[in-house]
């Protein structure tokens, strides 16, 4: 999340500042706020359905629904997002539901796979237009579709099922060999994917 990091860096304290004093004096705790979750089951299901369109089940590996990206996204949006970002996200989910209703008179899960793809392509286009407007200085903030896509990819790649099916998962390798033969199609060693890399994948096409 480059933009968010840039914003955070503005908050860095310089020059004659007592670091940590404010929190220390106010007795403020560094504990994360409790995760109650701001998304209801219907929204979590919608995220799993959207996730399945973005990262579908295939013969060799699970889809996003199987690894339950919806609940993961609920955890992260609740714990990581600012109230403003949470509002963008919630408004975005409503916008998706409204779009399904307006164009197909159906809910997202009632659409055919082709219609779901079609809808997500529209969201891609909307996110692209939003970014162009941000670049022109006409809009600000992140588009909700980028948030959904980024968190879907992050939750998916960091899930147990994906680590163990799509990658060579080696919690205790025991050995290291520096140079082995590799044939295209051999699995890559699982490594932790973070929010930053997930963002890169999400915006690559936007």
């Amino acid at each position: 999340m480059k933009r968010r990091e840039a914003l955070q860096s503005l908050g860095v304290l310089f020059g004659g500042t007592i670091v940590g004093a404010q929190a220390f004096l106010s007795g403020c705790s560094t504990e994360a706020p409790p995760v109650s979750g701001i998304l209801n089951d219907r929204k979590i299901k919608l995220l799993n359905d959207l996730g399945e369109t973005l990262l579908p089940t295939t013969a060799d590996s699970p889809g996003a629904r199987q690894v339950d990206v919806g609940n993961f996204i609920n955890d992260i949006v609740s714990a990581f997002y600012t109230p403003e970002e949470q509002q963008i996200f919630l408004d975005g989910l409503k916008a998706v539901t409204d779009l399904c209703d307006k164009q197909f008179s159906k809910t997202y899960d009632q659409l055919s796979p082709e219609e779901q793809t079609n809808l997500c392509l529209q969201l891609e286009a909307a996110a692209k237009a939003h970014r162009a407007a941000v670049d022109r200085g006409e809009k600000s903030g992140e588009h909700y579709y980028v948030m959904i896509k980024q968190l879907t990819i992050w939750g998916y790649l960091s899930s147990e099922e994906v680590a163990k099916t799509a990658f060579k998962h080696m919690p205790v390798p025991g050995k290291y060999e520096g140079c082995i033969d590799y044939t295209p199609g051999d699995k890559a060693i699982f490594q932790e994917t973070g929010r930053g890399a997930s963002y890169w994948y999400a915006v690559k096409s936007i």
Partner: protein
Amino acid sequence: MSYIITGKAKAGNTYDAIVIGSGISGGWAAKEFCEKGLKTLVLERGRNVEHVKDYPTAMKEQWEFPHRMEIPPQIRNQNPILDKCYAWNESTDHFFVKDEEHPYIQKKPFHWIKGYQVGGKSLMWARMTQRWSDLDFEANAKDGYGVDWPIRYKDIAPWYSYVEKFVGVTGNKDGIPHLPDGEFLPPFEMNCLEKHVKATIEERFEERHLIIGRRANHTERVGNRGPCMKRDRCYRGCPLGGYFSSNSATIPAAIATGNLTLRPDSVVHSIIYDEESGKATGVRVIDTHTKEMMEYYSKVVFVNASTINSTLILMNSTSSRFPNGLGNDSGQLGKNLMDHNYEGAVSGQHDGFKDGYYDGKRPVATYIPRFRNVGNDKRTDYVRGFSFSFEALRSPGNMEGIDAPFGADFKNGLFRLGSWHGGMGGMGEMLPYEENQMTLSKEETDQWGMPLVEFNCDFKDNEYKMLDDIVNSGAEMLEAAGFKNIKTRIRKKGIGLGIHEMGTARMGRDPKTSVLNGNNQLHAVKNVFVTDGSCMTSGACQNPSITYMALTARAVDFAVSELKKRNL
């Protein structure tokens, strides 16, 4: 101050030796004193951390962490300093001190990263252990920055060997005069691309080498520790004892003697100085639970609280003889603060070796020893030099030829192995400057009533000129080795983040210009020794911990022989 001095009998609080701090140097002081038969008290300001038992995240997978290993932004925002530390994430969070837990004052933004627990930062250190040579010990004398080291390589070489044999250092005997070989466990293997980069650099550039990293990871069993299982999760604490820490190695060795008393949750307030004998008699300690102040006594005191805190304790130990801090006749206490300059990095992509990969997770990178201002290489724009850490990797996430913004092909791209990438991180020597210093606030105090530390420290012209050369020469070597899309970065993250703070109680030959002598003894108070990073007279461009360990073992040996001669 409202602390109560306990009325306990002095005898019950008396030891042969007191060691302040249980990190990488304090652990060594404890082990050496205990093994030489001295009843030793180790004071640790943080909580106890027991090997294996207190490594709660060691076996966890990414999906088992509440936020998949990332720290929530609200907590990051509350910790603007710690947030800049490369090793802080959800898997290591319990070992790092939060900004609010020990506030300090930045007159200039020095980033102070802290680990307050038994074992200190030895739990999450980067484990790189290169010896110094006379290129480093003679540097100050030759170019005139700082003061001359009171020791040379021959003085410390046997002590490097002594500590390396116990630590367990993996490495290769490379025969490079200014990066002396040590007592090594078998080396890790380089991967396909690293071997190619090594061959290219050594063929194309005179007097440059690329070697496998020398690190305190155990490729063979060391005593009852290890071997390393190549999990590359060292920063969380290793339940297999695959790398060296105080917790896995020196503290258990000290406990085994029956001579160790370990007192966690004990902030040392000051060292007690006796005007009559001209010696220290013990220390004043604040119990972090009760806030009660108590005194402990000993014949000898080793200060190993980590650079900034060791200097803080000395500065806070005032008396009519030492109004400006214990042993501070020279006025050098708190000055000459150094770190290493890690601001320069170079990376690139390599399209060769597509049929090559590696197996396992190597916790060790390769290393390019210093080549600037060595032998025939003479820079006119700056003095000293830098080294590089270099690692080549192939990662999943290969989106080449995939235009679909989502769907099955896109998903497959996330799994596909990509090209090789290489990353070089420079580590530049920083000169000792008197004006780079820490002082104590006259107004502000912390939770324990200790004065807040103020920092006034900056990189200067020599460091910035070197930094340009770090990125340029790194890019030049990657280019020679056939890398594409080479990117150079000057990170501007700030001083302190090398987490190699050094120099604030420097060793030297002359009591007028240094705090410690060649045996790490306060010139003016012979039974107080300082053997952590604060003793360093210059910084070199090797990771410093193995030198702290060697100096500590050497100083304990000296102290015990002096005690036997009744000189202390």
